[in-house]
């Protein structure tokens, strides 16, 4: 990034002059991202909807990307800016790894992302915010970790589970009731799909599993073996199972009262 800012500053998101407009610009927005840890790793998942005002701009957008071998970013907010930010982030991690011959620490990666969000603050003030969720497997501490951000680049590590985007309130509440710290990989994947289902249930901007078009959430798993994205068959199995149960219990699994 340092090299880029010297050599081709116009390629960096933060260095562009802001358009002199008042009010929000209509651009596609991504919505809900959720993450949950389990012993041995972390899952990061996102719904597939992008909205522009009250219109669904895209039904099958992908909002979860591998950042490198051991981490992933899920993006909520202005899709165009967010995708560019992820691209630059991926580039930077890979560049560092090649030049130095070693990977950045997970903390280092999280801090780097924080700076990149902060550089977008001007745009965020005009309504073009980008708020990602960063999850990765910490090779040194041998566990999955989640970092969440706010628009100003503030970074906080989450324990257990986290969500970001317009449906995050509902998704987080759902995960709060479902989360257990002895999840298996598959249970964690099911929990995040449940959370996305609840988010789609109550937030108009979040898309639920689209069984008709076979568009399912993107679920990624990061363990000591690295990043892996569940195939659409694997996710469809989980999503169908969740859907099947919801036909009987529309509000999803009930938690014990006490």
């Amino acid at each position, binding site marked *: 990034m340092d*090299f*880029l800012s010297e*050599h*081709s500053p116009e*390629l960096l998101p933060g260095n562009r002059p802001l358009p002199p407009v008042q009010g929000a610009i209509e651009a596609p927005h991504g919505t809900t991202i959720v993450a949950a840890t389990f012993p041995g790793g972390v899952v990061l998942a996102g719904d597939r909807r992008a909205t522009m005002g009250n219109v669904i701009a895209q039904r099958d957008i992908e909002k979860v990307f591998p950042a490198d*071998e051991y981490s992933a970013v899920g993006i909520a907010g202005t899709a165009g800016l967010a995708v560019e930010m992820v*691209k*630059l982030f991926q*580039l930077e991690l*890979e*560049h560092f*790894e*090649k*030049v*130095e*011959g*070693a*990977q950045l620490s997970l903390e280092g990666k999280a801090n780097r992302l924080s700076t990149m969000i902060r550089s977008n603050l001007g745009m965020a003030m005009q309504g073009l915010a980008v708020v990602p969720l960063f999850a990765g497997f910490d*090779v040194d501490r041998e566990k999955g970790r989640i970092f969440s951000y706010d628009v100003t680049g503030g970074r906080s590590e989450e324990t257990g589970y986290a969500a970001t985007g317009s449906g995050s309130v509902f998704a987080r509440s759902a995960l709060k009731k479902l989360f257990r710290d002895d999840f298996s990989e598959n249970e964690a994947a099911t929990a995040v799909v449940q959370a996305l289902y609840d988010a789609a249930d109550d937030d108009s901007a979040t898309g639920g599993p689209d069984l008709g078009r076979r568009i399912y959430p993107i679920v990624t798993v990061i363990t000591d073996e*690295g990043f892996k994205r569940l195939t659409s068959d694997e996710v469809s199995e989980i999503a169908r199972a969740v859907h099947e149960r919801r036909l009987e219990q529309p509000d999803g699994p009930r938690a014990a009262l006490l």
Partner: protein
Amino acid sequence: MSTPFYVSPQQAMADRAEYARKGIARGRSVVALQYADGVVFVAENPSRALHKVSEIYDRIAFAAVGKYNEFENLRIGGVRYADLRGYTYDREDVTARGLANTYAQTLGAIFSSAAEKPYEVELLVAEVGATAEDDQIYRLPHDGSIVDEHGSVAVGGNADQISTYLDQHHRDGMSLGEALKLAVESLSRDNNGGERTLTPEQLEVAVLDRKRPQQRKFKRVPSSQLSRLLASEGSSVGATEAGSAEEPESGTSGAETGSERSEGSEE
């Protein structure tokens, strides 16, 4: 004040070339060979941290002999060139040809500039394609020329002898095990026809493997796996083993000293 005496341009260039060649010839050699699934690099290099072979981009790798600080400079330049290209346009648009061209320009400019000493380096830039026919290997000598190589190539130390040996024995479609064996045989041949024994610990091996599922096709072969491959009598088992054992390279190369040249690697 002494008057500078006249040196003909031919003589000046010849002197510079001689100087660079001598520097390169002092170091140990690196060979690159095409095999069935890509390109394998084998370097004699006792150091685990200071690499002679490294990744540039998805399908492109770099190998060098000569002075460490000089080729390390060029390597970082290459990584920057490739990453910037890939970010500005697309990952597809980063090619070995473009990179080799840039290297040639740099080396050529340094070689003919009277103010600088010529770089004592010789580079290899290779790219794997979808099939063996699409593989490209470029050799870049110290003066900035480019040589398009096929099948096998050697640089450094007694490169002439080694490449003659390789040319005689290399054939298309070798398995990884076979190619490695040939490379080690060629490297262990001495100036005066004798043979030395090279242990896996003295070798740095990396492959560009087109069968690798990841986007980045470059992979280092650790010495434990190398011993297995060399012992496997060139059977095709070796090739599958290489594909399955995925290890990120961070483990071995974490402690880079950077300032020092590895002993024995150039002297």
